[in-house]
Structure formats: C-alpha cells, structure tokens
C-alpha cells in the first residue's frame, strides 16, 4: 500500500485510537519505523488523544503488580548481591552510637558482619507524602544471598513489621532481641524476634520519634525471653539502617 499523506493521516489516527488492527496494524508499525512523517503524525494523535487518558479516575493497583515488576527486573539473587547501594563498613555505620554504649564490643568479634541494604520491593504501596514517612530496609549478612529479615514500617498503623526471609532460629536457650538505637542514649527494646514468623511491633509515639530520627535498628542475642536487664547483654549480631521510600 502506498504511503500517501491522506492514508498516513487516516491510519495514524486509527492506530492511536486502537481501531487499526491485525495485519493492517503491523504494516502501519513498519511504516512508523521507516518514516519520520508517519511517526510525527502518530505523535500528534498520541498527544491529543492522550488527554482522554488523563481524564480517567485513578485506581490503585494491588501490591502484587510491583512485586511482579521487581521480580522480573531484578531476580532475587542479583537483587541481594547487586542492589546494595549503601554498603557501609561496620565502623562507619555504628561507631557514633555504639562505641560508648558497648565499650567492649569489638567490631572484628561480632558473629555476623553487617551490611546495610536498601531493598527495593519492600513496602511497594507506600507513597512518600512527606507527612507520613514510612521506613523500610533489610537485615542482611554478606555470606547469605537473601536478607535475613525484611523490615517495613506502616506509618499510618504505627507498626513495625519484620518478615523473616533467610533468618535462622537462635541457639537453644537463646532469643533474638530487637532494639531501636537512638542518636544519643541507650537502645530501647522492641521485644523478642522470631526467625519463623512475621513479627509485628506496635510503635508508640516515643518509639516512632526515636526511630524516625535515628532510623537504626540493632539485633542482639539474649537469654530466652529477652534481656533480663532492659539493656542488651549479649553480642550485637546485626545493625540495620532504615530508609524512607
């Protein structure tokens, strides 16, 4: 079929409208590849008819859509290995608050090295409205592909959720305990953490405030049931920094 200006004009409109179909549509797409005049005509309609699209009401998609997108773009192995934009050394990450609080804490002696990871794919529905920052992040360990726990804060429900992914149970007679680490002052207990189930921790105003400013969590190994003193007594296994998404 010859590409006359009249044909281009008529077919471009129907192409954008969607009513040009089948073999005719595919032929027209070949025309677009070969001719800037055809592309220009298509753009005219895309822009003008595009206004019809923007007039439609918004519909929030289910979270599974984002999960699907991130799964397809970044398969999990690559995601945990390559998408660690902030991988600080322990010394940089914790020295400010930890040195004074656990004077005996030797960086080299900790059981697990700490990497701070921002994991995309956590908390996909959250809008960063500024007023309600929702934090998320991951507790990771360099020799383990997957994060140990995924952390997310649901801002409007005042909850912190930790979902175990690659976490393994604490040794018999021991428990993991989660702490929020303030910028200054002693860590505040958020309770005992399990490796088997999602842990949901309600946050009161004070905890939220501290978390919002320091954005730092720590996990220590404690006797079963948690620290008897209200302060960490065992080794600090992990430190995780949260990010607002």
């Amino acid at each position: 079929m010859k590409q006359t200006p009249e044909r281009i004009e008529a077919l471009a409109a129907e192409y954008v409208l969607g009513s040009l179909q089948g073999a005719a549509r595919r032929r027209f797409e070949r025309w677009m590849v070969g001719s800037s005049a055809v592309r220009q005509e298509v753009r005219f309609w895309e822009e003008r008819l595009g206004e019809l699209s923007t007039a439609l009401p918004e519909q929030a998609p289910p979270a599974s859509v984002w999960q699907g997108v991130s799964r397809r773009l970044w398969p999990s192995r690559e995601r945990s290995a390559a998408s660690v934009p902030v991988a600080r050394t322990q010394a940089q990450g914790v020295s400010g608050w930890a040195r004074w609080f656990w004077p005996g804490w030797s960086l080299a002696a900790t059981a697990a090295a700490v990497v701070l990871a921002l994991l995309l794919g956590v908390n996909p529905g959250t809008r960063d409205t500024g007023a309600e920052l929702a934090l998320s992040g991951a507790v990771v360990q360099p020799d383990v592909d997957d994060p140990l726990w995924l952390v997310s804060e649901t801002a409007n429900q005042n909850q912190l959720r930790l979902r175990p992914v690659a976490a393994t149970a604490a040794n018999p007679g021991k428990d993991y305990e989660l702490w929020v680490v303030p910028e200054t002052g002693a860590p505040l207990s958020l309770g005992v953490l399990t490796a088997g189930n999602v842990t949901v921790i309600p946050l009161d105003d004070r905890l939220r405030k501290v978390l919002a400013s320091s954005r730092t969590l720590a996990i220590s190994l404690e006797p079963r049931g948690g620290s008897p003193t209200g302060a960490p007594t065992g080794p600090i296994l992990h430190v995780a920094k949260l990010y607002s998404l």
Partner: protein
Amino acid sequence: MVDSMDEQEPLMRLLLATAREDRLAFQQLYDRVSSRLFGLCLKLAGQRELAEEALQDAFVQIWHRAGDYHRDRGTPLNWMMGIARYRTLDLMRARKSRATVGDESLADLDDGRDGPLEQSLKDAGATRLTGCLNELSDVQRDSILLSYYRGLTHEELALALSSPIGTVKSWIRRGLMALKRCLEQ
C-alpha cells in the same frame, strides 16, 4: 490541572534517573503514576487480571525504555500512559478478550456531553479536545470514545452500536478527520 508542569517536572526527573538505572527513583515513579496508569488499563480491559498483567508489563517496559524518552514525545505522564495503553490493547487482542461488548459498555460509558466525562476532561485541561469532540455528530463521537476507552474493534463497535461495520468504520474515519481539522485550527 492534571498535566501541569508542577506535576511533570518531578516525573521528568524520576524518569531521567530511571534511565540511569536508579531503582529507588523508579520505585518513586511507580508510586506516583501507577494508579493513573492502572485506571486506564482497567477501563480499557474491563477486567482486573488482564489490567494487572498489562500494568506490570508496562512498567517493565518503562524501566527498559526510560532512556528513549525525550520531551518531544509528549509529557512524561502521557508517554507512560501511552505505553500502558498499547500494552493493554496488545494483550486484549492476543486474548481476544473483552469482558462486555453489548449494552453494558454503552451504558457505563457516559456519552461525554455534560456528563462526568466532560467534566473530568475539562478538569484535566482538555478543554480544546472537549470542544472539538462536541462538534462531532453523536455517532462519530460515540464510536471514537468507545474505541479509545474500551479498545473495541470495528466488529465489536458494529455490534455495540447495532450498525453495519462499513458504517461504523466511516464514522470513525470521518470523525477523526473532523477532530483533527478542529484541533489544528
């Protein structure tokens, strides 16, 4: 106005960052526009499953094609809406699926004159387009809007409007040409 530069500038920044493979920017982009795109996919497809699949495909494409975007392809939002729309149409064709073709599609697509559609078009700053659509005959206008919003084929349109297919084709063709003349004035 939905298309104001206030909204487009941040989208432009996020899209440029996405082109540099900034995942966080991409997620922020998703957070900002996914509801807009999903509203469109859902309206077109008439069913959630297909709309969700199309939206997912569209964002995978947006990630890969962000580097192709430039200003003369329209606003960032329109460019992304276009990707979502074409992907939805492709899937609908591939599945030959259309939830409803008959009276229902006509009933819940208001005819756009003085209805909620016209109002939302005006709110979206599409006063020019609205004005020009109003100059078309009812059947021209209906067949264009049904094609656009519902992705109806000529055959489905003929069925929906109880008219011969040749007639429907000429409504669309003449309607579009009249629309173009009006928009170009």
